[in-house]
């Protein structure tokens, strides 16, 4: 179960504000996490507590393909991102590195900054604990569900390698 307080943002939160280019020579998750969202919300890293959840409007993560973006969000202690929609590369990167992301427009409209939110990633159930409301996120396509259930892209790649080796 993923649980924490909501940090809310608008539409088109791009990867340049999620993690500015000047930090993209870093590779360490904790280091990147210190700078997450700093150009959009200077107080974010000071305010964010482990488990907190980002809630945003449409097209979250647009722009660059930098995997540093979901890594920085994860490094800041965020347990999940709920948005009305995601940019394609960010979405894929998030699943690959194990940052749970959920598409649920109704939940975004029903969650305010500071609300306590709980997400069951197995069922996609999103609950606003503060207001006592509940929604279900759009399920992952079956192929992506299988990737996530297997633990991300790496186990999938390892499985493909074993198949090729005839093991």
């Amino acid at each position, binding site marked *: 179960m993923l649980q924490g307080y909501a940090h809310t943002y608008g539409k*088109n939160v*791009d990867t*340049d*504000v999620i993690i*500015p*280019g*000047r930090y*993209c*020579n*870093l*590779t360490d998750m904790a280091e990147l996490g210190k700078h997450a969202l700093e*150009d*959009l919300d200077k107080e974010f890293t000071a305010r964010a507590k482990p488990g907190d959840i980002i809630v945003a409007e*449409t*097209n979250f993560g*647009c*722009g*660059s*393909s*930098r*995997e*540093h973006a*979901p*890594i920085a969000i994860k490094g800041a202690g965020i347990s999940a991102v709920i948005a009305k*929609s995601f*940019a*394609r*590369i960010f979405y*894929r*990167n998030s699943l*690959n*590195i194990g940052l749970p992301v959920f598409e649920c427009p109704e939940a975004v409209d029903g969650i305010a900054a500071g609300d306590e939110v709980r997400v069951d990633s197995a069922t996609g159930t999103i609950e606003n604990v503060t207001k006592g409301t509940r929604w279900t996120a759009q399920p992952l*396509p079956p*192929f992506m569900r299988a990737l996530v259930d297997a633990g*991300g*892209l*790496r186990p*999938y*790649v*390892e499985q*493909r*390698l*074993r198949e090729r*080796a005839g093991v």
Partner: protein
Amino acid sequence: MGMTITEKILAKHAGLDHVTPGQIINAKVDLVLANELSAAVAIKEFEKIAGAERVFDPERIALVADHMVPAKDAQSAKIAALMIHWGREQGIKHIFDVGKGGIEHVVLPEEGLVAPGELIVGGDSHTCTYGALGAFATGMGSTDIAAAFVLGEVWLKVPSSVKVIYRGALQPFVYAKDLMLHTIRMLGGIDGATYQAIEFTGETIQTMSISGRLTMANMAIEAGAKNGIMAPDEKTLAYVRERTNRAFEAVYSDADARYDRVVEIDAGALVPTVAKPHSPENTVPVTECVGVKVDQVFIGSCTNGRIEDLREVARLLDGKRVADEVRVIVNPGSQKVYIQAAAEGILGILASAGCVVNTPGCGACFGGHMGNLGEGEICISTTNRNFVGRMGSPKASIYLASPATCAASALTGKITDPRSLALEPAAV
């Protein structure tokens, strides 16, 4: 039911006769690209994959040091060296270090590493540039790139396609860049084509140079697209054959291919266009911004760092001086562009006009180094993104425009319509 050029390339690389939008496929890749920023993360991941010791094919990987080189600082030096050393240890054939390459998306087409019908994935969102040569090319994150290094294949969801039909000839001082900025808006903005393929067609594209086509396909991602693509023609084949002798198969959309939507754009009616801060979708005719004072002009990037771009800038600045109040920074897109610009006297013209000419690389475009913006500063730039903080301070503002509009603005220190210069338009 016929297939689009994108669907055909994906089907062929997946070993299938037919694919439809939404289908998940495993596709073989012809080339995998990474730069030092994406490679640093990808190599870390590669080393964690059990059973991954060697890359799938050292001849089908390209590594380009371009984002923070010549090294901005010790950390940048470390990751560039990590990539280069790993690449050599893996026997990778196409390694482009400082002085041997330049910006990845300028270098790869130039070196003949992209051909029609091929499938290319890269650890950089502007990998979509290669669609200009009739290839399927898309950007991915480092974990996907690590997987492609090992497997030589990627999983992909087949995108639906949006067809854009351009009619008419571009007016003087209107370029591929203006047309693409306008197109982003016409498609619905920066998520107008999310998850989709943009197929650029029509007479305006047919008469456009390869350089202009690369500029347009480069910014497909700015509409959220998975890839941008153009049918190869005689110009494409001539460009590619000059650079490689390997076999390739040009692919074309069927007449009965299915499109999610078709958008028609009257290119002949377009005027010089700029994207205002802070999004590439905020496009307006340059006339709406004329007179805005600028602190910096940036000319370069994978969008507009090719020799044709520098020629046009040099033509407008030849024998003149840029305004005292403005810094003008030029980053040639590659070592080859730099050498050609030197041979044509362009570097001298630019330097004499008061521009600083940087080494080839991504430089300030993404807030890397060699020209970042300070608080409150305004820049007009030939680059592809103007998000908050993109080129440095989150309190700076960026306008995106063509090389000619940027050159005109350099002369006056204010955003200037290039048509207002007392100059003949370029002979096309």
